[in-house]
């Protein structure tokens, strides 16, 4: 009996490792649609809708460097001077009138259905381990279905189900789950654009599954590859920012 179990284990294990490996590599490829450069800036417009009526909108400038550093600058007139800094697993919100940056969490709501982590993180591969569950048809697209499990404490959601096209590894939709196992948000990756030969995400929609008739549209505008200085991601430098 023990020998049979060993045999089953030996046969199954490589498959599991392969699923893990191919899941991670698909995830890394899918991340390139939002994270195409080592260092770049992108303007993000967030529109919140309720009962299909636009409630409000907010604009941000997101500066990304490497895999774990991001700085979000608030551009709305009532929020100017505010910054959200994420360095690896740590996240702070800086408001010009307060003395110190305040610790916040990635899941905390930033605006509408968008959490801090939704805007500050433009990749999944840093925070999640991917497992390939199989193939599924989404609309008329043949997609890989991935199950993402959080591997860092800075992951915004503990579990994500993620569909990317089989042909291009392009994100199509995602379902985001809370620690309780409850479905929290559904995401559809709606539009892409081509810039300097790169396919980039242009628009995505976050649908709140906990609040009815509410959804948030995130538009990525003006991707700009730019070498950002390390000091921008130094917490101490926040007080120097304008």
């Amino acid at each position: 009996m023990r020998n049979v179990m060993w045999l089953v284990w030996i046969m199954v294990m490589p498959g599991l490792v392969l699923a893990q490996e191919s899941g991670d590599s698909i995830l890394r490829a899918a991340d390139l649609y939002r994270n195409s450069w080592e260092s770049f800036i992108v303007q993000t417009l967030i529109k919140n809708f309720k009962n299909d009526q636009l409630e409000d909108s907010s604009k941000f400038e997101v500066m990304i460097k490497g895999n774990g550093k991001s700085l979000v600058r608030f551009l709305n007139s009532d929020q100017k001077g505010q910054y959200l800094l994420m360095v690896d697993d740590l996240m702070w919100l800086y408001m010009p009138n307060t003395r110190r940056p305040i610790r916040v969490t990635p899941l905390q709501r930033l605006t509408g259905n968008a959490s801090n982590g939704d805007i500050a993180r433009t990749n999944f591969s840093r925070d999640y381990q991917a497992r390939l569950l199989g193939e599924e048809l989404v609309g008329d697209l043949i997609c890989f279905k991935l199950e993402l499990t959080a591997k860092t404490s800075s992951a915004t959601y503990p579990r994500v189900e993620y569909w990317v096209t089989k042909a291009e590894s392009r994100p199509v939709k995602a379902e985001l789950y809370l620690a309780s196992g409850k479905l929290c948000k559904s995401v559809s990756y709606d539009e892409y654009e081509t810039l300097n030969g790169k396919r980039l995400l242009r628009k995505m929609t976050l649908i709140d599954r906990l609040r009815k008739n509410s959804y948030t549209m995130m538009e990525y505008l003006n991707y700009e590859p730019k070498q950002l200085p390390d000091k921008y991601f130094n917490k101490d430098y926040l007080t120097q920012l304008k």
Partner: protein
Amino acid sequence: MVKTVHWFGGLSFMAVWLASVVSLQGNAFGERLNYRFSLFTESYHNWLNDTPLNKDNELLPQIRYGSYSSADLFLNHGRFTTAIKALAHYTDRDASAYRAIIRELYFDHEFGGSFHITIGKKILKWGTGYAFNPCGVIEPSRQASDPSDRREQYQGRQILAFDAFSGNRSFTLLYANESRYRDTFHRGKHELASRIYALVRGVDLSLISHWKEEEKFKLAVSTAYTYGTHIELHSELIGQMGSTKQYHLVLNDPNFQPTPHSSSYIARYQHSNKIFPRLLVGVQYTFDNGISLMIEYFYNREGLTHQEWQRWRKFVLTQVDAMTTAPPDPLSFKHFYDALMTLDRSGSMRHYGFCRGYWPQQRFGLELLLLNNLVDGSGVGVMTFNYVMRTNFTGWIRGEFYAGRRASEFGSLFFRSAMFLGAKYSF
């Protein structure tokens, strides 16, 4: 009429100055203009406390109601940054004011990618505390009951600073001086300060030194550490040998009698080898839904002990008696007033507790602050409800409530409670 002239004078000064900065910078640098402009208005009503220190609000009549309005402009273009304010403050007493204030005005030159030189008037933020800032040796001193400075009243210090940034480390060396020209030149005291900041194994660590002419040399350390994604611990510790703080002589001698020709104050620890620390420790917990809870404890050895506070209070009451009995002592008001003014509220006592709870929602926010004197149990509670009426238009209602026995610190304040109703429009 004079006030009107001041008002228009202030506005014209601001307009000319603003135009010059914008035009100069528009030509000199191709960088974008960053600005924030807001209109702020707040009306308030104070309910007075019938404290024996200010019986029937007669000795030092206090404002019962008033209205405060300001226009605030923050402007940054390239290397120049400024924050200016025009304010109007009307009260039921003859204390109305119209002023234009330059809160910040500095030139910031960056070179070599990692180095900065700053010259001008700037608000610096050192340390990790929220309500108290013992490490803020060159910061404006903050009010623990309004740590977010909602009226944007704090002003910068005149500094010449050098900053170097490298990865998660930075170094600052600065010189500060508050010299000013108002009819005649007033030379300020020389100040030097340095700060080394580093993120070491997840701990924000700052080492600070500060020297000021005629004051004691200070060394400080501040830390912040995040445990998991929800808990942040922070601390500040500053120490000095001896103290130049002025203490009222009644604190040494309960039977002290002030005389007209000699000072009633003495720096009693001027030559002492005693170490005077100020310590702040705090913890913040942030829930996933955004609710945050912060607790801080502050200790200041330069502050008064409970017995010293009682002596000081008894002395003030003696002066009150001398003023109200016939014939009144002509000097008693001076002694009374000096004693009140000298007592720096934030450093008056030794042990304080602070607690802040904040519940942010999409359209509103609710903040609760509690500041407590841990020795006599008195305190102040502040509750603020913010409502976002439109994206750039926010209104709020704020209540401040002072509680404590008659002989306690907050129970002795001239106010029992206050209510504020305000709005802010930004563009």
